[in-house]
C-alpha cells in the first residue's frame, strides 16, 4: 500500500526550509522602530525628514491591517463573503468614544503615560467586547445562510448600524462624535497590530483555523467529519468582529472625530479592495495589500494636489478600478494564499 515518493514537477513542493527570521523578531523589529520614531516626531526632531504626516500614514496602515486581516478570517479562511466589516468597526469606534468621553476621567486627571495606557486598555477592551457581541448576534442570524444571502445580510447590517447611529442624538447623530481625546499614537497602533497578527496567526494555524478552511473547501464534508458548522462560523464572526472593533476603537481615538458615514459601505469596500489586492487566506497578503493600497492612494493624493488639484476627488475612482483590474487579471491577489516565511507554521521535524 506504500508508494514510492513521486515528485510531481507540475506541483512544486512548497518551500519548507525553516525561516531564519521568526515571527517574534519581526514583531520586535516593528516595535523597536515604532517607539523611537514616535519619540522623534513628538519632539519635532529631524522634522524635515520625519514629518508627522508619514507617521499618520503609518498609523492608518496599522489600523487598516487590523481591519483587513480580521476580515480575512471570514472572506479568506472561512470562505464567506461578508460585506459589513465597517459596521463592526463603527460599533467599536462609538463604544470607545463613549467610554473615553463619558465614562472615564480624562487623561489629564490621571498620571501621565500610565493614565493614557489605562484609558486605552479600557476603551479598546470595551470596543472589542461590544463588536464581538454584535458579531456573535450577526453570526447567529446568518448561521443557516451562505453565499449571496450572507453577503446581503451583512451588507444590510452595515447599513442598519450607520443609519441607527445617524438617528441617535446622544452620540452626535449625523453631525458625528466630537471631542474624543487623542489617546492613541503610532506606538499604540503598532502594539495592537502586532498582537492582532499574532493572535490571528495562532488561530488560523490551530485546529480552529483548519476547521474554518475545511468549511470553505467543502462544508458538507466538514459537517460529516463532525464539525458543528454553525458554531465554527459563529466563532469566526465573533473573533473577526472583535478585531474590527479594536480597529474602530483605535480609529476613534486617533482621528478624535467620527461620523457615521466614515463607517458606511464605502469603508467596507475599501477594506475588501485591500484584502483582495493582497490575496485571500494569507495574513502576509493582508499586510501587503494594505501597504500597497495605502501608499498608492497617498502618492496619488500628493501627485494630484500638486499637479492637478481639480482632479483630487477622482482619486476615489482608483479603488474600485483596482478591484476590477485584480478580478480581471490576477484573481488571487498579489500573494495568493502564500505566506511570508516568518508567518508560516513551523512544521515539526
Amino acid at each position, binding site marked *: 500500500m506504500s*508508494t514510492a515518493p513521486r515528485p510531481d514537477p507540475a506541483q512544486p513542493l512548497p518551500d519548507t526550509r525553516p525561516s531564519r527570521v521568526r515571527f517574534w523578531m519581526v514583531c520586535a523589529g516593528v516595535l523597536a522602530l515604532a517607539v523611537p520614531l514616535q519619540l522623534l516626531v513628538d519632539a519635532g526632531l529631524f522634522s524635515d525628514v520625519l514629518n508627522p504626516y508619514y507617521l499618520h500614514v503609518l498609523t492608518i496602515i496599522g489600523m487598516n491591517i487590523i481591519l483587513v486581516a480580521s476580515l480575512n478570517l471570514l472572506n479568506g479562511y472561512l470562505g464567506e463573503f461578508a460585506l459589513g466589516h465597517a459596521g463592526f468597526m463603527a460599533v467599536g469606534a462609538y463604544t470607545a468614544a463613549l467610554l473615553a468621553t463619558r465614562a472615564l476621567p480624562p487623561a489629564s486627571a490621571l498620571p501621565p503615560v500610565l493614565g493614557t495606557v489605562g484609558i486605552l486598555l479600557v476603551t479598546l477592551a470595551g470596543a472589542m467586547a461590544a463588536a464581538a457581541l454584535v458579531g456573535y448576534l450577526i453570526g447567529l442570524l446568518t448561521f443557516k445562510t451562505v453565499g449571496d444571502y450572507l453577503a446581503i445580510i451583512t451588507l444590510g447590517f452595515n447599513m442598519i448600524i450607520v443609519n441607527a447611529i445617524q438617528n441617535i442624538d446622544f452620540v452626535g447623530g449625523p453631525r458625528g462624535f466630537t471631542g474624543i481625546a487623542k489617546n492613541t499614537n503610532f506606538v499604540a497602533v503598532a502594539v495592537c497590530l502586532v498582537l492582532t497578527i499574532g493572535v490571528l496567526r495562532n488561530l488560523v494555524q490551530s*485546529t480552529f483555523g483548519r476547521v474554518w478552511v475545511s468549511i470553505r473547501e467543502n462544508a458538507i464534508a466538514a459537517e460529516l467529519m*463532525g464539525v458543528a458548522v454553525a458554531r465554527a462560523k459563529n466563532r469566526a464572526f465573533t473573533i473577526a468582529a472583535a478585531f474590527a472593533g479594536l480597529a474602530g476603537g483605535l480609529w476613534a481615538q486617533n482621528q478624535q472625530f467620527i461620523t457615521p458615514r466614515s463607517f458606511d459601505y464605502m469603508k467596507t469596500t475599501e477594506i475588501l479592495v485591500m484584502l483582495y489586492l493582497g490575496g485571500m487566506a494569507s495574513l502576509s497578503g493582508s499586510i501587503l495589500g494594505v501597504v500597497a493600497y495605502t501608499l498608492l492612494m497617498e502618492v496619488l493624493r500628493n501627485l494630484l494636489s500638486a499637479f492637478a488639484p481639480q482632479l483630487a476627488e477622482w482619486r476615489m475612482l482608483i479603488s474600485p478600478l483596482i478591484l476590477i483590474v485584480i478580478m480581471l487579471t490576477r484573481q488571487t491577489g498579489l500573494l495568493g494564499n502564500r505566506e511570508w516565511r516568518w508567518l508560516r507554521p513551523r512544521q515539526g521535524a
Partner: protein
Amino acid sequence: MALRIASLTKSFGGLTAVSGFNLELGDRDLQGIIGPNGAGKTTVFNLITGVYAPDSGTVRLGDREVTRLSSDALARAGIARTFQNIRLFAQMTVLDNITMALHAQAGYGLWDATFRTATFRREEARLLAESREHLARFGLLERQREQAGSLPYGEQRRLEIARALATGPKVLLLDEPAAGMNPREVEELIRLIQQVHRDFPLAILLIEHQLPVVMELCREVQVLDFGQTIASGAPREVVRNPLVIEAYLGEEEAPA
C-alpha cells in the same frame, strides 16, 4: 451489532426514494448495497448520516438510537463516510486533511490556541505526529505537503478513506469508492478496503456499482431497486437471482 436499521423510509414529493430499508451490520462486518442508478443507494447513506431526515424508521448505532441526530453529531458518534464524487479539502495539504479530521480530539480550547500555551503546543505536536503516522499507514506520507486536490484520482480516494478513518469511526460508509477508477486502481482499492477491514475495529458498509468489487469484498449484500430491497444474501447467490438480473439488465451495464 454496530448498526441496526429498521424500516427506513424517505419520500421526495411523490417519489419514494427509500422504502422500508432494513440492515443489520455486525461489529466487524463488511456488507454491500448494490443496485442500478437511481435505486436509492446514496439516499440510504444520506439518511444514515443525517443529510436527510427519514420520514419513518430507526437507525441505531451500537446501543444508541441516532435516527434524527445532525450530521456532525452522527460523525462524532462514530459514523464516517466517503462520497461518490470525492469531497476532499482540495486546497488544504494532504497532512491538513488528516489533522483537520482530528479536530474533535484536539485537547485544547480557543484560549490555548490564541496564546499558544504549553497545552496547545503539546496537543498540536501530538495531532501532527498522529496524522503523519496515519498517512504513513496509507502510503501517503510522501505526499503530506502537497495540496489534496493535486493528487492523482486513486490517491485522492485513498486520502478520503484515510481521512474518514482518522475520526476513529465505529461504522465506515463507502459510497461507490470504485467509481471512475481504472481496473488497476480498482484492484488497489479492493486491497485497501480489505486491509482497512482487517486492521481497524469497525464495520464497513459499501455502496458499489461494480459487481466484482462487491463479490470480492462483501459477506452479505442487499440489492436495491426503486428504493426497495429486492434481494439480499451472499453475493454469489444474489447475482443469480432473476429479479436482480432483470434490474441490472434494465440498463446499459450488465452484471459482470
